[in-house]
C-alpha cells in the first residue's frame, strides 16, 4: 500500500441546525424552476410543431399526447390540456416537476435538431396541470360500481395509479399502505424543491376524489396482512411496494453515528421543519445517482459548508443525468469521480473521517483500486448507492413469487407468476422513475379490468 494523504483539519462531529437564516433556507427550497408565466407558456407552446407520430410521445413512458396538450395550451383550453395529460398519466402534475425530461420527452423533441433547444414539455405540462389543480376541477368520473374488489399494496405512484385506473372502471379498491401517509416517495423521497406546497398530498386527494378507493394507512403486508388471505378476499392484488432497504457499502463502522442512508435523511428533509434540521459542516455523499445528487444539493441548500459526491467511476457512468450533475455543481457541490470509500474513521462519538482509494479499470474493464489512498475529515456521510427490495422485510409473503434480478418478475401485462397478482413500480425490473411507476400501475389496472371482462364472457 502506498502512503495515505492526510488532511490537518479538525476531525468530525460538526453538526448543527440553523447554519443559514430561516428565510434563506426557505428561499433555497423554493421552486427549482419557477412556473411559466402566461406569456412564456404562449411563446413556448407556439414553438411546438404539432409533429405527426411525435417522437416526444414515444419517449414519454406514459404516452401522453404531447402535441395535443400543447396545442390546447396555445388555444387557451387549459382544462382540456390538463385532462389530456392526466388521462394518460394521473400523476402528470408530479411528473411535470420530477421527470428527468432531458432523458425522456425533451430529449426526443425535434426542436433539439431544429433549434438546439427542445420545447420545454415538462414546464408546459406543469402550466396546464397547475391550472386545473388551482381550480379544484375533477375531470374524471367513476363508472358504475361493478362489485369487483382489488387490494393494492403500497400507496406510491404505482399503487395509486393502479387504484385510480381500476376505480375509473367502477371497481372497488382497498389501498394498504405501511406508512402513515400515502404518496410513497412523492411524499417521502423526491427532492423538496420539486414537490412544493404539499403537491404529493394534494395529488393523493385528487386521485381519491373520484371515489371507490379506500385508503388504509399503517397497514403493512407481512405484518397483519397476508398475501394468501388477500388473494382469497379480493378479485385481484396489485403490489406496488417500491424498495424497502438501502444498499450497504460493506465497510466496518458503516452504521456509526454520522453515517446515514441518504433516503432516511431525505425523508427528514421532506417531513421536518428545515430551519431546525441539523446538518453537517463537511459532507461526503457516496454514490452517483439521482439520490446522491438530491441529498448533496439539499445539504448545500441547508447550509453545509462543503459537500462532495464521491463516485467510483467516471462522470459519464453516473446514472445521474448531465442535467442533475450540472444542478449539483451550480449549487456548489463538488463531484469527485474515480474514488471509493475503503475505511470509516471513528472516535467514541462516531464518524470523524473517511479514507478513499482512487480507482481505475483493469485490462478487462473491471473496476479496481489503484492503491493510492487519501483521508478526509467528515462530519456527516450519506450513503446513496441504491435501494432494493428485501423480501424478508415483507415477512416472506412473496416467497412463492418468481423473481428476476431480485425484483418481482412480471409479464407484459404486469402480471406476476401468481395469475391474480400484479405488480409495478420500483419493485419490478425496469427504470426507477415516478413516470414508469405510474405507467406500470396504469397498465396493470387495464390488464386487471380486461381479465374481469374475459372471466365474465367465459361465464
Amino acid at each position, binding site marked *: 500500500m502506498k502512503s495515505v494523504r492526510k488532511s490537518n483539519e479538525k476531525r468530525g462531529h460538526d453538526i448543527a441546525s440553523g447554519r443559514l437564516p430561516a428565510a434563506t433556507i426557505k428561499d433555497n427550497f423554493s421552486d427549482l424552476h419557477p412556473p411559466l408565466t402566461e406569456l412564456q407558456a404562449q411563446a413556448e407552446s407556439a414553438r411546438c410543431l404539432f*409533429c405527426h407520430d411525435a417522437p416526444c410521445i414515444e419517449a414519454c413512458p406514459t404516452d401522453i399526447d404531447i402535441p395535443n396538450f400543447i396545442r390546447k395550451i396555445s388555444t387557451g383550453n387549459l382544462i382540456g390540456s390538463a385532462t389530456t395529460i392526466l388521462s394518460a398519466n394521473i400523476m402528470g402534475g408530479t411528473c411535470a416537476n420530477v421527470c428527468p425530461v432531458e432523458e425522456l420527452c425533451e430529449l426526443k423533441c425535434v426542436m433539439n435538431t*431544429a433549434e438546439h433547444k427542445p420545447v420545454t414539455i415538462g414546464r408546459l405540462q406543469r402550466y396546464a396541470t397547475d391550472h386545473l389543480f388551482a381550480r379544484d376541477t375533477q375531470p374524471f368520473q367513476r363508472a358504475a360500481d361493478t362489485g369487483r374488489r382489488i387490494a393494492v399494496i403500497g400507496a406510491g405512484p404505482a399503487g395509486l395509479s393502479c387504484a385510480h385506473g381500476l376505480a375509473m372502471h367502477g371497481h372497488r379498491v382497498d389501498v394498504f399502505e405501511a406508512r402513515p401517509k400515502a404518496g410513497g416517495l412523492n411524499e417521502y423521497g423526491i427532492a423538496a424543491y420539486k414537490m412544493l406546497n404539499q403537491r404529493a398530498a394534494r395529488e393523493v386527494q385528487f386521485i381519491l376524489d373520484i371515489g371507490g378507493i379506500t385508503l388504509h394507512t399503517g397497514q403493512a403486508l407481512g405484518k397483519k396482512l397476508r398475501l394468501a388471505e388477500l388473494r382469497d378476499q379480493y378479485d385481484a392484488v396489485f403490489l406496488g411496494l417500491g424498495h424497502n432497504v438501502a444498499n450497504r457499502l460493506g465497510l466496518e463502522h458503516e452504521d456509526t453515528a454520522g453515517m446515514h442512508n441518504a433516503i432516511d435523511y431525505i425523508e427528514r428533509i421532506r417531513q421536518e421543519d428545515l430551519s431546525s434540521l441539523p446538518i453537517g459542516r463537511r459532507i461526503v455523499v457516496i454514490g452517483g445517482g439521482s439520490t446522491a445528487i438530491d441529498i448533496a444539493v439539499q445539504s448545500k441548500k441547508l447550509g453545509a459548508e462543503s459537500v462532495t459526491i464521491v463516485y467510483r467511476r467516471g462522470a459519464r457512468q453516473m446514472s445521474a443525468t448531465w442535467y442533475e450533475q450540472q444542478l449539483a455543481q451550480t449549487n456548489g457541490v463538488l463531484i469527485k469521480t474515480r474514488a471509493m470509500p475503503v475505511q470509516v474513521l471513528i472516535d467514541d462519538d462516531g464518524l470523524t473521517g473517511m479514507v478513499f482509494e482512487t480507482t481505475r479499470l483493469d485490462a478487462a474493464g473491471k473496476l479496481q483500486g489503484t492503491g493510492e489512498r487519501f483521508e478526509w475529515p467528515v462530519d456527516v456521510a450519506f450513503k446513496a448507492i441504491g435501494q432494493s427490495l428485501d423480501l424478508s422485510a415483507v415477512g416472506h409473503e412473496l416467497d412463492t413469487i418468481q423473481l428476476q434480478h431480485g425484483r418481482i418478475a412480471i409479464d407484459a401485462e404486469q402480471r406476476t407468476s401468481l395469475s391474480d397478482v400484479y405488480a409495478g413500480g420500483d419493485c419490478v425490473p425496469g427504470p426507477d422513475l415516478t413516470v414508469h411507476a405510474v405507467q406500470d400501475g396504469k397498465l396493470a389496472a387495464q390488464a386487471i379490468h380486461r381479465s374481469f371482462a374475459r372471466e365474465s364472457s367465459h361465464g
Partner: protein
Amino acid sequence: MADLRCNIAGVTSPNPFWLASAPPTDKQYNVERAFEAGWGGVVWKTLAEAGPPVVNACSRYGSVDYNGQRMIGLNNIELITDRPLEVNLREIEAVKKAWPDRAMVVSLMVPCEEDAWKNILRQVEQTGCDGVELNFGCPHGMSERGMGSAVGQVPEYIQMVAAWCKQHTRLPVFVKLTPNITDIRHAARAAAAGGADAVSLINTINSIVSIDLDNMAPQPTVAGKGTHGGYCGPAVKPIALHMVADIARDEATRHLPISGIGGISNWRDAAEFIALNCGSVQVCTAAMRFGFGIIDEMVDGLNQWMDSKGYQTLDDFRGQAVPNVTDWQYLDLNYKTIAKIDQDKCIECGLCHITCEDTSHQAISKTKTADGQRIYTVIDDECVGCNLCHLVCPVPDCISMVEVDNGLPYMNWTQHPNNPMSK
C-alpha cells in the same frame, strides 16, 4: 448606397416610405416625430369640411393575434380626423415649412357635392402641401353618411369627384381606393377617366375581427355593441398586392402611378409593391404596432437589397414583376415540379407526410429504421408538385420543389386538348 428618392405624380420624397392617412399622421406632433425618424412623407389624416368635427367611439381597435404574435391583422372603427379643420390646416402648413423635402399629401373627405370639394381644395392648397388624396375608402361610419367607400364603390361617383377635384386644384390628385368591391379595375379605370394623377390602395377591408364570447359582441365592443370595422396589417398584404397587380396590368390604368398600401411592415414588403409598379408605399399598422423607429430597417433593408441586386434607383426595378403576372389560362400546364427532401436537414417532424397523406396526394411515405429514426420519402410518381409539404416543413430549404425535365413543350389551357373551347 442606392438612391431611394421617389417621385410619384410629381410629389417627391427622399425615400418611398410614407405614413398612410391614419392616427400616425393625425397632427403636427406625430408627423414631426415621424420626419425626425426618417419617414419620406405622410398622407395627413383625412380632413372634413369646416364645422363640428366627427366624434369617435371608444374603444376603437381590434386585433387578430396569431400563435403568440400580436396584430397580424388590425381592425378599427375610427372615423376621419376629429380635430377642427383650421387647426389641421395650420399644422400642415407649419410642418411643410419646417420639412420642405418631405412629401406632404393631404387626405380629404367631404360630401359628394362639387362646392364642398371646391371649398376644401382652396383651403388646402394654401398650406403649401404637395398633393391631395381623396379618401373613397373609409368603410365604416362615413360610408353610412354617403362618403368614403359609399363613393368608392360606385365608379361613376369616383370619376365625377376626381374630375371636380382636377378642375378645382392645381395639386396632384391621388384617389384612394376601397378594396370592398368585386373588381378593383372598375374603380381604378373610373379614377383614370376622371383625370386622377395617381391611385392609392388599399384602404381597409370590411371586417369583424372577433366575437367576445363572454359579452357575445364583436370586438372592439362599445357599450356592449360592436360594428364592422376596417381591416389592415400584415394579413391584408396579399389582397393589396393582387389589386395593385390588376391595376398595373390593365390596359386602361397601367400608366397610372400607384401608391401601394396594405400590410407593408418591412423593406421586403415595400420592394414587392414597387416590383408591381408602385411609386411610393404607405404604412399604417406597422407604425402603430412598433412606433416610427421601424423606418431605419425599412430604408436600410431596401438599400442593402438594391445594392446586392445592382439596382441604383427605384425605377431600376419598378414594375419588373408585372409582366410575370398572368391569367391562369396562360400558365404552362406541361411544367412539372416534384418535392425533394434533403434528408440531412430533416428533423423528423412528420408534418410533410401527414399533411400530404390526409389532405393531398399520399405522396410522402414514412418508414422507421430499427433504431427508431423516421424517414420520409417522396414517392415521385405520386407527387403532383402541389407545394404543400414545402410550405409546411419547418426547416428552411429542407424540402425543395425541383423542376422535372419531361421534354414537353409549353402548353396552356387555351391550347389543351381537355379544354372544350380549344380548337
